[in-house]
Structures are given as C-alpha cells and as structure tokens.
C-alpha cells in the first residue's frame, strides 16, 4: 500500500512535472512530506497568488503545464487571481489545493472553502477528489485537459484524508484519457479551408490578425510562411507579440487600443481579415461595428465558441491554428495581387512610426528601447500591467514566440514579477526581465524574498513615475486631470531590495540608463533597477473607449 500523497507525486512525475510553486499549510502536510523526498523541485513563494502566477509564467515560457500547490481555505483562495489570469489567456496550469477531510466537507471547518465552487468560472475544469484510488486518473485527466484543445487551468482539490488514504501498490494507471464530453477538433474542415483560399486568392487588401493562439499552438513558423507566401501584411494582438518577428517588413505591429497607426488603419481598410488564434477582444476591436467594416472575415480558432462570439464571420475554421495553417499552405494554389496594398501599409509604417519626445529627460520609452537594444530578442521579457506593459509591447522588438509574457485578458497587476520567476525555471538559459510600474511591483513585492532565497536571476526594471500611471493617464484625458487616488508616494525600491540582500541601482538621468541595464544583466543573481521616469508621460497611440480603432489620439493625423 502507498499513501494518496505518494500516489499524487508519482502521478505528477509521470506527467513530467519538474517544478512546483507552492506554499505549505495544515492539510497539505502529507503532500509536503512526500515532496521532501521526491525529485520534484519545490519553490517556496511568499504568497499563494505568486505561486499561481509563477506556474503560469513557467507554462508560457516553456509551453508545458505549470503546477502550483496551496493549502485549503485562504491558501486556495489566494490562488484565484492567478488561476483567473491563466484562464483568460488560455494558459495550461494545474493548481493543486488541499482541502479539509471529506468528513468535514460542508461543515465550515477550519480553513475550509468550497474552492471547486469558487473556481468554476475561472477554470477549464476542476475536481474534488474523494477517493485516493481516483488520484491517478484525475491527475492524468487534469493535465490532458489543461494542455489540449484550448488550453486552460484545471484545479484539483485534495481532502486531507485522500492524501493520507491508502492506494494499492501496483494499481494499473489508465493508459489513455477518455472523456466522451471533451473531443477537441484539431484539423480544419477541408471545404472551409478551400473557401478561405478562394477569398485569399481574390482579396486585394487582405490582413492577418494574429493572436495568442499562434503562440499556444507553436505555429509561428507556419504563420510566417503563410504571410510571406500569400504576401499579406500582419498585425498581432498583445498576446501575439513575438509570433511574427517584430522587425519583419510585413509586420505592422500591434493593433487595438494602443495599436500602431499602420495596424489600425490597415484593419479599417482591409477587404479580407484573416483572424488567427484571436478572440476579437474589446481592447482590440474598439467599437465592434466599425472594426474591419469592409472586410470578409476568416476566423481560425480551436474553440468553436469564440467564432462568431463578437464579430460575424464569413468563413469559420474550427481547428488547431498550426494544423489549419499547414493545410492552407498545402492547398494554396494562387495568391491575391496584394502588391499595392503591401506598399500602402508599408508606407503607413514609414509615415507613422511610434514616437515620443526623445529629449534629455528620462523617459520610460527610452528605457524599454535600450533594453530591447541590449537583449536583441534573446531574453524573456515579462511585464506588469498598465503603462509599463504598453510601453514594453510597443517599444521592445519581440522576435520569437514565448519571449513575451504578460497578463492580457485579465490585466492582473502584480502578475509580472512572480511570472518572471516561473519563466526562469522554464528557461534557465535565458535572461528574464520583469518590466514593472511602481504600482504593480508593490502588488507582489514580497516575492523579493523568493528570488533572494533561491538567487533567481530575474531583473526587475521599474518604470517609476510615482503614479498608477495608466489610471492617471485616463484621469488626465477623460476626468479633467482630477487625479483621484492615483498618486503614490516615493519609495526607495533599492533599499527594499537591499533589505532582502538583493542589489539594485536607482537611475534618475537618461545618461545612466544603458550602464544600469548592462550592470543588471551582467549580474548573476536578482537585480532591481529603479528608473525615476518622467511622471506624466502617456502611452500613445490611444483609442478612447467606445471609439473606432482608426480614431486614435496622440498621433499625427493622416
């Protein structure tokens, strides 16, 4: 006989789990005791939310399932924000939570919470295991569900008596997962693919709108080949950055609320929109009625529920983005005459580059540009949420998929720093930089303890403007500069870092940016850079809420 906890650990090892991010507590003690002897590395975070974000960052950087572990009640509840973040961006995570013994379930026992009930809206699926004999099957199903189809988080709730329960040694493990209610479609329908090819051959102004689905399905090479073969300009969402090299001539950059002028104009004028692994998010489309108003729409997505959800689609193709792009390439015989259109979009790009006032002041865009110049795409850049995120999205040149990690759907402040920890364990060969705002960084600043303990070489680049910058920007533009509760007092982040025995530099002048970044990147361990940037710098271009995406402010008008 072996315990449920041992069964669990063995099941995790069968799934290839090498790292778990977690925080111990009463009812997970049997699991922690088993972990103590196991080959699985456990990273002790300082708050369970960070465990969930780290598992998510691990998954995004590696393409594998990230795993986090927390105790019951408050521990489990603290995972929720991280699980919801992963859910909104379709990230494969398995969250393990402890639960009070089955006999106490529903009794409001100490540290009890109905975590399967709480996480139902933010998980792809979840389990409450009531019998240790189910553990092998449940773990196998959970990983399968998390990583297949449209990926997403799965939670497994483990009552204490299940972890201590006995499982017969040598119980056979189910060979394959069989779920009659879950059968994702991977291959696109051939007739739909041919219909799409007809539209592509006849289009004069086609545009590819690519998103996170391209990254999730490892379809970057296919997308690039498609874009080049069909000679179609491409714009990516925030989640799609890096899916196509940022400096590729056909890449118009990001579209949407903070999209480039060339991308947003191209969407507005295209006659065919080829939407690949995207979900027509409102931050992308602006006013939906005026999004790609003259275009026929092809939508490729593995989740049928995304097709037609926000925008009427002419040719729906349900399937894995990679498989569908391969089929499109295989069957393509003729491409449209797009030379004029490619020239036109290219001219927009030249005419309306991203710009900011590059004077002698320390501006956040400059910091990001210098970072981009130093890393040359050979690093993983994680962001927090807000202005720091948009400046990074716009001014850093992402060249490869899985080198950009950000909370797109939920927009979770405090995400970046713990996600960077996860990214490091996924890709220890790559430098990992968290671009932060002073507001976001303070949301999970306690993880300095984690990076100090394990000497995790994450570099934190704080674009410190002593504001909740993006909210302040909205107040400036739409609330008559009434900065209601968005000002943050000065914080000496380097002193805080030092208290955790982490090195840091405060930079107040533009002249010091390059050297500070070089010093941080050359340091073996963690490093905190506090850039005191221009306080009221704004993110432009910007589409005001409710406007059409070609109605941008902060730009040179055509």
């Amino acid at each position: 006989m072996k315990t449920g906890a041992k069964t669990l650990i063995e099941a995790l090892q069968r799934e290839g789990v090498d790292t778990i991010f977690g925080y111990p507590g009463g009812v997970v003690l049997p699991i922690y005791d088993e972990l103590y002897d196991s080959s699985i590395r456990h990273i002790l975070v300082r708050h369970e939310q960070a465990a969930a974000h780290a598992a998510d960052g691990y998954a995004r950087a590696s393409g594998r399932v990230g795993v986090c572990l927390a105790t019951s009640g408050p521990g489990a509840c603290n995972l929720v924000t991280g699980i919801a973040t992963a859910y909104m961006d379709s990230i494969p995570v398995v969250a393990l939570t402890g639960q009070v013994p089955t006999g106490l379930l529903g009794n409001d026992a100490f540290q009890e919470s109905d975590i399967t009930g709480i996480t139902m809206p933010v998980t792809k699926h979840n389990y409450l295991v009531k019998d240790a004999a189910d553990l092998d099957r449940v773990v196998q199903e959970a990983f399968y569900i998390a990583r297949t189809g449209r990926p997403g988080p799965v939670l497994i709730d483990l009552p204490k008596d299940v972890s201590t329960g006995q499982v017969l040694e040598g119980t056979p493990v189910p060979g394959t997962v069989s779920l009659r209610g879950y059968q994702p479609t991977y291959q696109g329908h051939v007739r739909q693919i041919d219909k799409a090819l007809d539209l592509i051959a006849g289009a004069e102004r086609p545009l590819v709108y690519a998103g996170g689905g391209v990254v999730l399905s490892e379809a970057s090479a296919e997308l690039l080949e498609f874009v080049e073969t069909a000679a179609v300009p491409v714009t990516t969402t925030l989640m799609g950055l890096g899916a196509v090299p940022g400096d590729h001539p056909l890449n118009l950059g990001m579209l949407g609320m903070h999209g480039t002028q060339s991308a947003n104009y191209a969407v507005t004028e295209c006659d065919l929109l080829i939407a690949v692994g995207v979900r027509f998010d409102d931050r992308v489309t602006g006013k939906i009625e005026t999004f790609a108003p003259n275009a026929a729409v092809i939508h490729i997505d593995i989740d049928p529920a995304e097709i037609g959800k926000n925008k009427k689609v002419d040719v729906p193709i349900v399937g894995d983005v990679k498989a569908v792009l391969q089929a499109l390439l295989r069957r393509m015989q003729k491409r449209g005459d797009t030379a004029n259109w490619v020239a036109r979009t290219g001219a927009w790009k030249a005419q309306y580059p991203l710009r900011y006032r590059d004077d002698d002041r320390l501006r956040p865009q400059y910091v990001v540009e210098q970072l981009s110049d130093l890393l040359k795409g050979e690093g993983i850049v994680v962001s927090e949420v807000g202005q720091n995120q948009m400046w990074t999205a716009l001014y850093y040149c992402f060249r490869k998929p899985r080198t950009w990690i950000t909370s797109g759907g939920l927009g979770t402040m405090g995400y970046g720093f713990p996600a960077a920890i996860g990214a490091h364990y996924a890709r220890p060969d790559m430098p990992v930089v968290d671009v932060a705002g002073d507001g976001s960084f303070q949301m999970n600043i306690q993880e300095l303890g984690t990076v100090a303990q394990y000497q995790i070489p994450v570099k934190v680049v704080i674009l410190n403007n002593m504001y909740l910058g993006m909210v302040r920007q909205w107040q400036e533009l739409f609330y008559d500069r009434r900065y209601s509760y968005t000002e943050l007092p000065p914080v000496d982040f380097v002193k805080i870092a030092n208290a955790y025995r982490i090195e840091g530099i405060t930079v107040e002048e533009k002249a010091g940016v390059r050297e500070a970044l070089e010093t941080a990147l050359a340091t073996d361990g963690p490093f905190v850079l506090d850039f005191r940037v221009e306080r009221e710098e704004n993110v432009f271009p910007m589409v005001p809420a409710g406007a059409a995406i070609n109605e941008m402010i902060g730009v040179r008008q055509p």
Partner: protein
Amino acid sequence: MKPHTVSVLVENRAGVLSRVAGMFSRRGFNIESLAVGPCEEPNMSRITIVVNGDDGVIEQVMKQTNKLIDVIKVSDLTERESVERELALIKVAAETGPSRAEILQIADIFRAQVVDVGSKTLVLQVTGDTEKIDALEKLLRQYGIKELVRTGKIALLRGAKTVKSSK
C-alpha cells in the same frame, strides 16, 4: 427573441448542474425553466433548459454549454419535431359547495387529476405544454391558488431520432 428548448446530456456527477447553471448565469443567458433528472443510461443525466434569446445568443448558449467537460451532447429541439411537457401541482381553495364542483369540472376538462382532497383545498396535478398549464392556472386563480409548483419543461424528439452521445 423566443424561447428555445435545449436538451443537454451530461455526465451524472456531483456538481454538473451547478457547472451548467453557473455558466448560464455568468454569461447572462436567461433561463426560463430548467429540469433535470436521470436518463436511459445510468451514468448520464439529461437537463432540459428553456432559454430566451436571439439567434446569436442561442448559438453562444449551445457552444458555451458544449465546452463544459461534463457535457456530452447539446441539442436545440426548438426547430425540430418534439414532444414537450411539464407538470404542475396546484393547491386551490375549494370550500364545499358550488365552487368545489366547478373546480372539479375544470379539472376534468383539462384532464387534471385530483391528487389530494382537504376540507378547504384540492390539489390538482396537470401535465401538458406550458400554455395549457398557464390556462388552467389562470382559470383557477379566481378560486384562490394557495400554492403552486411547476417542474419546468422536459422534451424529447418525436420518432426514432434521439439526442445521444455521438462520441
């Protein structure tokens, strides 16, 4: 906007109803009625949901329901030939005398059964489509309805066709 009758075949597991109903409320789908119970196979249940919405809403209802791991099959029975029934129990005030006789007469016309007789009340059981039960309810209201309970609609396709797991 018209009511659609959606038949959902699900795994018979704890929490499945909550997953389905929770998804409906969280996405703002308007449930008119919901009935659930075991079906022909021991490890499955069938949920019948009547939901209001335009074509776009119903399409999302079907797709989002189908996305749930425990959902095996979803069918919209509205445009197809189907039998639809619900059941109601109505406790109606019935003092002895002419009103009691009238109620019994109405029950007879509606093929409702008297399932309980009290000194001051009758409990009627009626099955049929929603309109029939509405009509009976309206007629009985004048005598005073003390309590009323309806099951929600259940439905099956006519003929040999079935809503079964195709997987």
